[in-house]
Structure formats: structure tokens, C-alpha cells
């Protein structure tokens, strides 16, 4: 593999890791507050569709972003209502949201655009444009560092940078603010939060809505940044991969970045090398493309160390004596 190939690979790693990163941080906020969310996938898909649809209709990608985020937030509010207010089962609510999003996007898409569930292809201002970082052109000829900066770091859409920035911001909120302390506490022992005179319900709703917001960004990026339009089931299990990354990352923001980059790299590898020859054995395309999913299974099966989830995760809070 030459250096140019490596650079291309890293460039697409970053692109592919971004939706995972948003979804992973979304799950992090929710699960740290004690609300399991397997509906990341559904929220992402709904956001992807409504972003693309609104962008296609208005020609403005920012309106698309707003629409997508609003869709994701509504589903998040629904999950909150089911699992916090009505103390329902969080897994079932998540599954329902995934099915709802999967069916709804195709149905509405077909009704609005008659393209078999797709949205029209997005061009120009109805899509996020690539940003060239300052001095990218000037630095390009510098050996080693040049291409790294000009190709890998520069030349992405705004959401990629927002995603990268979201990691330290999440870390800061979680570990350096009052809100973060309470959020982490409510995922560990809601009784302690309640007796300290803080509302468990309000905290958990905040977490779930932040989760909705971040899933919205993930979905919008999928259809208006990474691709140019919505296609049926375009989230392709990324919500679940993000959950695996979250476990892999032990619910910590910086680890989440690493985990998502790893998954992004595997996906990039699968895309770049349709078949790979290792020690005389040719690995087929299908295997290469299945890599992220294989890693997911490996992580979920617990082969990668012991991860301790927030202790009150998945349980509705009911006052007791």
C-alpha cells in the first residue's frame, strides 16, 4: 500500500466515522442518564430522510438540517414519553421507533417524490459543501504532513468538524459541569439524585433530547453530507454499530472517538479493497464489507474486555421508601 492510498483511506475513514460518532455520542448521553436507546438507528434514518426531503424541496441544506433534527427530536421525545413518563420498557420502545422510522421514511418518500422511496439527488446549496481549511493548498506539497493536512483533515463538510468538536464538548459537559455530574448520577443511582432534591424526570428528558439532537446531526450528515440524497434504509445498521462502539468505548467520549474511527476505518477498507490477498488467501468482497459488522458482533459478545454499563440503565425510576 503506498502513501497516497493510505491518505485516501484515512480521508474516507473520517467521513465514514462521522455519522457513527454523532450516534455514539447521542447514545452516550442517553445511556449515561440511564435510558437505553436502541432507537438510534431509527432516529438517524428519520433525520436522514427529512433532511434530504426538506433540502430537496427548499434547495437549502440548512433547512434540511433543521427538519431532520426536528424529526429525530420528535422520536426522541416519544422514547422519553414511553420510557420516562410511562415507565415502559426501553428496549421495546426503541425497537418500535426503528420500525416506525423504517416504514415511515419509505412511505412518505414514495408519496412525496414518487421515486421508490428515494429523494431527488441533491446538488449545490441543497447539500453540505466541502470546506477547505486555511493553507491547505499551500501545505499540500510538504512531504508526509502536507497530504495529511490537505486531504485527511481538510476538505470535509462542516458536520465532520462539528462531530470532532462534539467529543471534547461532551467530555467537558459530562465531567466538568453540574449538569454532567447530575446526568451521570441519574444513570447510576436515581434515588441519590431524587433525595438530593433534583428532578430525575427532567434530567432524563434532557438527556434523551440531547440524544435526539445528535442523532439528527448524524442522519442529516448521512443524506446531505456523505451522500447526495436519501435512499431506503440508508442508515444500514449504523445506529447499532454506534451502540457497539459505545460499549467498546466504555461510555467515555474520547474512547468513543477512537472506537468510531476504528469502525470507520474498517468500512473504508471494505470500500477501498474489494478483495484483499493476505498470505495467499484472497478475502472476498463480501467479507471485506462485512468487517464492521463482524467487529460489532465480536464486541457485543464481550471479547473486548469487561464494560460496566451505568448501573441504573434500562430501569424506570420509581420512588420507594
Amino acid at each position: 500500500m503506498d502513501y497516497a492510498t493510505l491518505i485516501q483511506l484515512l480521508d474516507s475513514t473520517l467521513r465514514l466515522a462521522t455519522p457513527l460518532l454523532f450516534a455514539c455520542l447521542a447514545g452516550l448521553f442517553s445511556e449515561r442518564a440511564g435510558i437505553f436507546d436502541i432507537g438510534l438507528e431509527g432516529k438517524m434514518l428519520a433525520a436522514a430522510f427529512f433532511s434530504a426531503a426538506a433540502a430537496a424541496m427548499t434547495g437549502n441544506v440548512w433547512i434540511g438540517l433543521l427538519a431532520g433534527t426536528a424529526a429525530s427530536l420528535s422520536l426522541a421525545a416519544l422514547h422519553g414519553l414511553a420510557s420516562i413518563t410511562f415507565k415502559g420498557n426501553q428496549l421495546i420502545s426503541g425497537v418500535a421507533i426503528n420500525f416506525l422510522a423504517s416504514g415511515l421514511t419509505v412511505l412518505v418518500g414514495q408519496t412525496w417524490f414518487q421515486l421508490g422511496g428515494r429523494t431527488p439527488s441533491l446538488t449545490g446549496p441543497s447539500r453540505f459543501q466541502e470546506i477547505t481549511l486555511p493553507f491547505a493548498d499551500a501545505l499540500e506539497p510538504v512531504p508526509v504532513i502536507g497530504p495529511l493536512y490537505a486531504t485527511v483533515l481538510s476538505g470535509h463538510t462542516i458536520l465532520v468538524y462539528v462531530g470532532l468538536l462534539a467529543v471534547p464538548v461532551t467530555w467537558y459537559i459530562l465531567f466538568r459541569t453540574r449538569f454532567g455530574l447530575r446526568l451521570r448520577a441519574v444513570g447510576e443511582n436515581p434515588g441519590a439524585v431524587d433525595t438530593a432534591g433534583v428532578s430525575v424526570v427532567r434530567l432524563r428528558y434532557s438527556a434523551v433530547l440531547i440524544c435526539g439532537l445528535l442523532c439528527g446531526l448524524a442522519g442529516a450528515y448521512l443524506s446531505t453530507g456523505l451522500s447526495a440524497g436519501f435512499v431506503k434504509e440508508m442508515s444500514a445498521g449504523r445506529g447499532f454499530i454506534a451502540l457497539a462502539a459505545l460499549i467498546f468505548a466504555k461510555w467515555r467520549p474520547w474512547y468513543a472517538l477512537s472506537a468510531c474511527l476504528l469502525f470507520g476505518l474498517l468500512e473504508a477498507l471494505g470500500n477501498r479493497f474489494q478483495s484483499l490477498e493476505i498470505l495467499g488467501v484472497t478475502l472476498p468482497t463480501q467479507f471485506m464489507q462485512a468487517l464492521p459488522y463482524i467487529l460489532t458482533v465480536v464486541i457485543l459478545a464481550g471479547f473486548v474486555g469487561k464494560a460496566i454499563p451505568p448501573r441504573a440503565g434500562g430501569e424506570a425510576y420509581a420512588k420507594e421508601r
Partner: protein
Amino acid sequence: MATVTQTEGRPSAAALSQTAPAIELRGISKAFGAVQANKDISIRVERGTIHGIIGENGAGKSTLMSILYGFYKADAGDILIGGTKTDIPDSQAAIRAGIGMVFQHFKLVENFTVLENVVLGAEEGAFLRPSLAKARRLLVDLAREYELNVDPDAKIEDLGVGMQQRVEILKALYRQADILILDEPTGVLTPSEADHLFRILRGLRDEGKTIILITHKLREIMDVTDNVSVMRRGEMTATVKTAETSPTELAELMVGRKVLLRVDKTPAQPGPVVLKVENLRVTDENGVERLRSINLEVRAGEILGVAGVAGNGQSELLEVLGGITEATGTVTLNGHPLQLSGPESDGRSRRQAGIAHVPEDRHRLGLILDFTAWENTGFGYQDRPDYTNGALMNQHALRTDTEGKMERFDVRPANCWLHAKSFSGGNQQKIVLAREIERNPDLLLVGQPTRGVDIGAIEFIHQRLIELRDAGKAILLVSVELDEIFALSDRIAVIFDGRIMGERTPDQTDETELGMMMAGMDGKAR
């Protein structure tokens, strides 16, 4: 308004508010469904005192304190804090009113540091750094002042229970609580930890804080309190100065003179020893010894009653013998030793050895509430030949058998297809009892046989236990109801703090003596 005693001569407004009771409750009532947990409770807790509240389990102490801390809303009555009528709809309001609570089960975030737990909910602003710095300074001061030393950076999960309790007290003090409520604070402490706690409490009182200590241990009340209120069956029966009362009087007030339930029985005809327990010890996951060298014997044809306030080890005793908890020591059944740990120490092995178990908590251990009556009567015996058909369950046999049991034990309605949860408490208990008794065990373990059971069923259940005794079986009865202990037992062993305090026969003793032994006082010393 309170009379001004200390400040006679200059009754300023400040002095008046100084002498108004820290807390006054007027006519507090609270019912849960048909159960009246608190009935018209009035109490005054003077400022700068340690006020004990004593009573048996289920007397309504915790409910009353939960009302004071905003967990429950009283059905009727007023709360006055420092002479002002105060509404306490939630914990936030209680904290604002200057009330701090140390729950029996700590409300701490296990993987947070001491400092983080202390500031949680009482942060200075949106950012943590200044709050943590302030708390750190304050913790140093408090540690010096009240012997409340805790490493502020230690994680809660790495601390012992005594230390965790200090963190709870620090939490309350950090919120500037004037009134500190402690619910059964010594239940998890070693004696020296408890002494240390009492020193801290006295120090706090001398600084002018008001302390409410909820306990069922008479000795603690006598040692540390200034005043004491006694609760019994949801009512406040008396409030007295500790110096003017005696343990005997308190024990009487606590247990009350209830009408004894009479069971017709002939004197026991004890046979050979069936169960022999020697040096039995259990340590729980927190490292607290729950059973400290228990020794006892039960003979064929007799009922040994284990009396005690709940939480003193009787549950662990039943669970060890029933094969639920592991222990060390020696237990023999008809001379054959039982395994107390490892795979052979489970409930199935116990049943095969001839022990039947009617657990204390039938909802948790006795029944599966969402299963039918016939499924429930098979549990524990589902692999016996008469219930199986090769690898399959013989459902027909199970149902026929259940119908017979329901008839013999007068379970109503006698429909074996009903789910366990649709029966009343008494009928649920009869289902468990029928299952365990009809297997003809050598030893029956029975815990709280009539808890939540109506009067008619109580009589029936008592009668069945006596019949089993007369059939030559050994019975180990655990009950927190003294009436029941007196009515059924041929011998009574009193358990306190994981130890057997002593053994009596029902005609040698009375409720006052047992009450004192149950509260950790030596009954002979009076």
C-alpha cells in the same frame, strides 16, 4: 406556643423562635390502601436534642419520616418547622426547610467520589470546579469539628459502610441541615462504628442541631437520646424523657399488651433431635456478619420459635437452612451433615434431604405470581416421579393433586387455573403451605406464616402447624409477631444482631422480657 424556660426574663422574638420546637407534627395520618401506616400522629421535637423514635418493624416510623422528607404526602395533618407551618411536597422542600435524612439504604452514587456525592444537587453554579473546591474546604472543617474524617477523593464503592454513612451525614451538613434524621443508622455498623457515630451525633447536638434517631434497639435509645417517642401499629403511644424512663417501660410500650391468639394444643412430646445447628456464621457481601455463631436444636414433635425484630439474622438463618444462602459451621439433619456451600447446598438438595421451606416472603421466594396455582404447587418437586411423564411434565397429575390440596387446605377460590396473584394473601400462603407440608418433610422451616393473612386463615394455618408437630415433625418457626411465637412455640429462642440471646419456654417468660431481649438487653438483668 412553647413556654420559655431557659430565657426567662427576656422573652424576645428571637428567644421565642429559639424555643419553638424544631419540628412539630400535628395529627399526621397516612394510609396505603386499607393499611393505616400512620394514625393521627402528633409529636414535638425540641431544638438541640437527640430525639429517639422506637417501635417494632412496621410500626410506621419510616413512613412518618418519609412524610417529613417529602417522599409521601400525608392524608391529613400539619408539619411545623421551627414553629412555622411548612408544606413539604418533595425532597427539595425538605432540604430548604433544613432537614437532612440519612436513609437506611444509603443514597450514594457508588462510582463517584465522596466530594462528588456531597455536592450532587447542591452545586454552586453550572461548573463543578468551584463547588468541589468549596466542598473540599468544608469537609476539612467538618472533619476537624465532628470527627467526620473521610478521604474526599475516595470512591464510595471502595469505602466501608461506616464511612459511607459519614458521607451521608456530610451531605446533610453540606446542605446546612439543622435537623438530621437517621433511619436505623446502626443496622449495618460494628459496635465501635456505632459508638463513633453516637459521638458524632452528640457533637452535632451540642452545636445546636436537632437529631431524630429511628431505631428498634433499646440500648441505643437509652445511651444517646434526650427524649424518646414510642410508635406501635401506626400510632404514637408515648413521648417521654429518656432519663425518666426505663428499658422495661419502653419495651412494654413498644410491644404492647395484645390479646393473645389462643391455639388449642397439648404439651409437646419431643422426640430425637432432628436439626442440630452449630457455630453457624454468615457474612454478607458488604462483609457484615449477619449470623455470629448460631447454635440451636430442634427435636421431632416440637416447634422452636425464633423471635426477634426483623433484620437481626432470622431471615439469613432460614435461607441457610433452606439452601438459598451459603454459610460456614455445622448443620446436621437426623445426624447427617448438610452441605453449607457448593452445589450440594441448594434448595433442591435440602428438599431431597427432607427439609421443606415456607419462606418469609412468599411473593419473592414462595410463589411465581404470574403462574397458575397448579404450576406453583409443583415448584421444587417438579422432578418427582408422580409429577413427571418421562421427560415431560405430567400436567394432569399436577392439576389433580393441586385440586386435592386446595380442598384439604380450604383454598378459595378452589380453581387451580387461577394465577397465584389473584388469590388473597391468606390463600396464597395456604398454597405454599400445602405444597411444603404434604411432602411429609422431617423438618419444616416456616417464616412469618401469617404475615398479611386474615384472621380466619391465621387460625387455620396455626392449626395445621400444630397438627404437623403432633405428627412428630420438627418445625422451626420464625416470626416477628410475638403473639404467634407464644401461641405456637414449645421453646422460644430470641435472636438479636445475629446471635441467639437466650432460650425460654413460653410459660417461663412474658412479652416484656422477650421484648427486651429482642432489643438487645439481657432479659435477666431487670
